[in-house]
């Protein structure tokens, strides 16, 4: 280890692998943050183009002022024209206070800081389970179920595709290999599509697994039973995600393993007499991981966007289903905030993958066009 370490330090000029990693993380973090800022800004622009949200705000102000003025007993004695004049005055005051007469571009920066600092305002119709109208709390309540489902599914997908890909690369041309290739096109259909079929078979027909939701109603009392119940409800959605992505992942990782096991240095290692497990780990797995991670990242993004419908199909209480409810209620603040959260989740996913990429690929250097291609 000593010799190798010195060599790498001499080449890169870094003090230690961990220092390199830290610097890389910071660099990528900042770059990703900037990209996220731009992305969120674009989202805000899209949501506000056409002045739709402004109209809602003006209507809200008018309504609120009208209600206030009419409810005030002292003002009842005034003639109607006076009342109207008073209301118009108040409306102008409110609009100035909220800055609605400022040009939109200037205000959009304000919305941007709001979105980035996650002060997301109040919902129009939805309420969180704890009774709050704050969008931030509503979203926070819905985030853990989504994360639970998708992190579990991704980890399972990644492990399965690596193990199966490695297994198949050693059996090129065998029946299993050809079966996997034949099944690879099944990944054309998104996860929620298979979800419907799974519900049909396992819930409607065989009646062994629940139709949807995260826990049974009423939920079990003890923590252990609650956990088991959640797991039981997770089986079908996770399976749906897996079916929708696994064959393609196995196919691509197996292809990469095949490509890298034909390299000369693998022949060298075999000639040297290294055990098969060591060859696989050091000479095949290590160089194949970066492109596999890239492909995995692409499929991840696909799964994220499909997650909305998956959650609806399975009635899973996550952000996707929340977005759908907000659409039905035309609750603008929640809709915009959910899209922003999705942008964040995507950014975090990319960031985590970049870190893993840096851990795995020692050729990644700061300043070069590194990171997940």
């Amino acid at each position: 280890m000593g010799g190798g370490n010195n060599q790498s330090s001499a080449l890169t000029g870094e003090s230690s692998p961990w220092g390199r990693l830290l610097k890389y993380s910071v660099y990528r973090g900042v770059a990703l943050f900037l990209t996220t800022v731009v992305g969120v800004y674009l989202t805000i622009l899209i949501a506000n183009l056409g002045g739709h949200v402004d109209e809602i705000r003006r209507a809200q102000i008018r309504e609120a002022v009208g209600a206030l003025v009419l409810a005030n007993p002292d003002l009842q004695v005034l003639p109607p024209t006076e009342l109207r004049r008073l209301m118009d005055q108040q409306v102008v005051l409110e609009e100035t206070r909220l800055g609605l007469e400022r040009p939109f571009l200037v205000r959009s920066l304000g919305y941007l800081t709001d979105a980035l600092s996650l002060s997301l305002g109040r919902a129009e119709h939805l309420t969180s389970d704890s009774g709050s109208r704050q969008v931030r709390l509503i979203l926070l309540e819905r985030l853990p179920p989504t994360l639970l489902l998708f992190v579990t599914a991704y980890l399972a997908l990644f492990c399965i595709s690596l193990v199966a890909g490695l297994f198949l690369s050693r059996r090129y041309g065998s029946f299993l290999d050809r079966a996997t290739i034949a099944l690879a096109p099944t990944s054309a259909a998104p996860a929620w599509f298979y979800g419907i079929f799974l519900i049909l078979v396992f819930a409607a027909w065989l009646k062994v697994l629940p139709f949807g939701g995260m826990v049974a109603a009423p939920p079990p009392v003890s923590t252990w039973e609650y956990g088991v119940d959640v797991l039981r409800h997770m089986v079908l959605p996770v399976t749906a995600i897996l079916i929708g992505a696994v064959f393609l992942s196995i196919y691509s990782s197996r292809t990469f393993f095949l490509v890298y096991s034909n390299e000369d240095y693998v022949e060298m290692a075999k000639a040297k007499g290294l055990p098969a497990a060591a060859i696989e780990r050091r000479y095949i797995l290590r160089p194949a991981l970066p492109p596999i991670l890239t492909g995995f990242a692409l499929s991840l993004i696909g799964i994220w966007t499909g997650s909305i419908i998956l959650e609806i199909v399975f009635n899973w209480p996550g952000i996707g289903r929340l977005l759908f409810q907000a659409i039905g209620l035309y609750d603008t603040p929640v809709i915009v905030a959910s899209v922003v959260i999705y942008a964040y989740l995507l950014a975090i996913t990319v960031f985590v993958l970049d870190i893993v990429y840096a851990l795995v690929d020692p050729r990644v250097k700061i300043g070069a066009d590194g990171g997940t291609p």
Partner: protein
Amino acid sequence: MAGLALVVVLVVVAVGAVIAIPYDEAIQLWRGGEAIWIETPRNALPGWVNVLPGVNLPETIALRASQRVTGTVPEQSGGVRAAALAVSFDYQYDDFPSEVALFFEAAFEQRQPLASVSWLMPDGRRVSLGEQTVGASTRYVVSQDQRLSQRLGGLPPEMGLFTDQRLDPPQAGRVLKGRYELAVDGLLFEEKSDLGVKLVVYGKVHGVAGTDHRRRDLAVALLWGTPIALAFGLLAAVGSSVTTLAIAAVGVWYGGWIDAAIQRVTEVNAILPALPILILVTTFYSRSLWVILAVVILLNIFSLGIKFYRAFFLQVRESPYIEAARAYGAGSRRIIVRYMIPRVLPLLAPGFVTAIPSFVFLETSLAFLGLGDPSLPTWGKILNDAYQNGALYKGYYYWVLQPSALLMLTGLSFAMVGFALDRVLNPRLRLQ
């Protein structure tokens, strides 16, 4: 290759659908409404289930009254005439009809005719269905007549009027097969009055694909969904692939800050979540299919595929014939268009073909959420209707399975072709 054959089949179906049912007619059929679909049953199974052994579900019987006997009613004067109308049919199915309805048509000036309806069953029983005055066009839905239901022992009329009572009284549930007759005795109060009646015994199967909750024949939507899905997928794939390619080529050729800018824009685009943004656009602005198509293409121009094309173009840029072209003074645009882009087109093909089903499913996703184009009959719309009406819980599996099968077929066929193309054309995947 199986995939290619399937694609051809799909294209043929798509073209056929457009020719057989012209666009305007399709939209009108799909918009539905009573005038068009009133004589089809609700939520009927596809007709071919009757091929299965042991299944003998009723089809819809719609008959206009035949005999018309008019004479004068002796007791009354003043030109009151009697009319007797009868409809008879043979019922040999194993299951009860889903609904029964009578459609009266009367011509009169002021005084509406009176109709007295009775039902004659094969075993000789006669059930009176009451009397009513008839307007210009009146619909009497027999199966929703509560008093009739009570008179039939609590059974819904469409069952009570067809039950074999020789077994145990009413709950036997067995269909009495044989010759049924509907008799209408009408009283016409004016010289020129006229009365006509049509009996519709709604079946439980209809057509090739069944019907939905609004009595629309699903075959229309399934057929017409084909060209729409294919067109959308194709246009989106072409639009995004070609523009992505062009931009990658431009970036690689000019290099420098243009290249870096394109890279940054690509990263930003990767952060923008596609479906949520489409949801935003369709909720706030427009749900027209063209708008959706435009936004999808826009979001996919700067996709991550740029990296692959970029790597390839970088390779191509250093090749000798490009150098030669530069040496004899060819302009940048010429080099890009004439030399670089044609080189990469074979690489484009597999990705392009594999992208088509993902766009088809994207449009389906939007329609499933209820945000698709509301006037177009697409497969996603069928799924949306099915889901909104609880198809899986109510057991209307055909409603969900038929569009899903077509979607699966489309996806698989294009994916298979794309994979085959990939194995042939992608140099990285060539193994000895």
